């Protein structure tokens, strides 16, 4: 019997007078990688920590691997892995010691040696955690999160502070988990990370889901309209359109060689920023001039 790894309906959590999570719905299907995006304070971490059993919810229906996180036991905990935001703990133990030690906690762990190889830390096996670089440290965190052979992995902002190369190789590592059928719930600030890894993106603002979809179709067709830019009569002009080819053809007919011609697609980042600033004005700073209205100048 297959259950949906993560099933959330109408989740609510309040801290004092701040409604951190305000009726959030979220589903993660078997084998899927879902990225949760949102500005700081949007309720991402609160939501994930409720799913992991760290916090109690005020209201809503939550099932993680078929169980209520509020009452999940050891067996339930053995079925998922958690990679928290970067920590500096466990400093004095070596990579090999830690991976082997954490493997003992689980009923049917992965082979620790294979996990060390998989995260690319074979060379550092005898190195203490405190001496690892930021990227290596994060790989160790992942190794400890997956050594129990989890069905579901929570990755909380896994590549914050990485250099571009370290991020690429981290993404390869996550893709490898996907290939093995692991379900992954990822929170991130990086749009390119969501684009590279996620099957589906969920944008959260003010404790609610404001949009979701594949990275390619987030925000719907309107938000994805192409922008055609050119210069006419000495002034820059812009047009948002579903048919950029026809627009350019028309311009070419009218102007010949079109001065300053550019055809742009909004990036996931443009779409995201528009969504977030729409949902909670002031929570995110949209690029100057971004306007969600169709058929108007974008920049």
């Amino acid at each position, binding site marked *: 019997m297959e259950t949906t790894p993560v099933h959330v309906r109408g989740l609510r959590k309040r801290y004092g007078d701040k409604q951190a999570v305000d009726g959030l719905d979220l589903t993660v299907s078997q084998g899927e990688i879902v990225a949760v995006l949102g500005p700081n304070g949007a309720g991402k971490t609160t939501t994930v920590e409720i799913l992991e059993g760290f*916090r109690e919810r005020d209201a809503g229906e939550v099932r993680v691997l078929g169980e209520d996180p509020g009452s999940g036991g*050891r067996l339930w905990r*053995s079925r998922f892995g958690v990679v*928290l935001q970067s*920590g500096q703990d466990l400093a004095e133990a070596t990579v090999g010691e830690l991976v082997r*030690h954490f493997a*003992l906690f689980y*009923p049917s762990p992965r082979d620790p040696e294979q996990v060390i190889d998989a995260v690319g830390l074979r060379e550092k096996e005898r190195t203490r955690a405190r001496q690892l670089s930021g990227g290596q440290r994060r790989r160790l965190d992942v190794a400890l999160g997956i050594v129990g052979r989890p069905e579901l992995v929570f990755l909380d902002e896994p590549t914050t502070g990485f250099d571009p190369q370290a991020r690429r190789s981290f993404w390869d590592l996550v893709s490898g988990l996907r290939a093995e059928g692991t379900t992954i719930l990822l929170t991130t600030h990086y749009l390119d990370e969501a684009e590279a890894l996620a099957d589906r993106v969920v944008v959260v603002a003010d404790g609610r889901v404001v949009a979701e979809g594949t990275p390619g179709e987030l925000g719907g067709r309107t938000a994805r309209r192409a922008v055609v830019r050119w210069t006419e009569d000495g002034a820059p002009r812009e047009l948002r359109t579903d048919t950029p080819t026809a627009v350019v053809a028309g311009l070419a007919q009218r102007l010949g060689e079109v001065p300053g011609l550019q055809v742009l697609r909004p990036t996931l980042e443009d779409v995201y920023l528009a969504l977030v600033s729409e949902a909670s004005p002031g929570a995110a700073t949209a690029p100057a001039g971004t306007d969600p209205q169709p058929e108007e100048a974008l920049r």
Partner: protein
Amino acid sequence: MTAVTAARPAALPGALRLGVARTRYELRSYFRERDAVVFIFAYPVIMLAIFATVFGRDGDQIGEGPDAIGFAQYFLPGMVATGVMLSSFQSLAISIAVERDEGALKRLRATPLPPSAYFLGKVGQVLVGCLLQVALLLAVAALVFDVPMPTTAQAWTTFAWVFGLGAAAGAVCGVAFSSVPRSGRSASAVVTPVVLVLQFISGVFFRFDQLPSWMQSVASLFPLKWMAQGMRSVFLPDEALQIEVSGSWQHGATAAVLLAWLVVGLVVGVRTFRWRRRDDG
């Protein structure tokens, strides 16, 4: 043989087995923090050397004639009690506060490791730490300061229960007190003065009978005074009862106070223990 690897029973490893694994892990981490280990192990030895030398210069002793007691011998029991307190209370209160602050506890909480195995690991580490601590202190006292070691089984029995109760009470109180420091960085600044004050009022550095009586009364509320007194009953001859405040070793009261702290520490520790930092919701 047929391949039946697919039907693996998903039995969780037992808490006891994990407790042993945690003890090994804790000990390894503990002894790798060299600065802390050196301080905790050397402190009572150095203090014993200083106080024995300062008070015992010119051949001064406590009492006169054949019953006189050297200062090294008089201070040794207090230092043993101090060593147990450092290796149990101070070491746990600081290390758990740091682990909580750094997120190590939260990380463990997200695994199927049972909390009992975590605490078994701490208990194992404290026990080994205390034993090594006291063994080192006794060796230095016997070999360097010629302090006579007790020879009767009765004395060593007393030693065993005072040591055991003291270490256990210190450990659970350490777990409970680890919630007091607001951060890992402030932990040693918060914990050390508590330990130091107790040492001064509990007769570790001075003869307990020469302290002001109000100070003796305050000290009687805390376990260190009783642990030190229990250890004096092990390492000092009965003639030394003359300079005990009550004129008796008070073994019953010692056991009662240490047990009371064990129970109080356990209850408070269980109720206040947090896996996450205070500012983490």
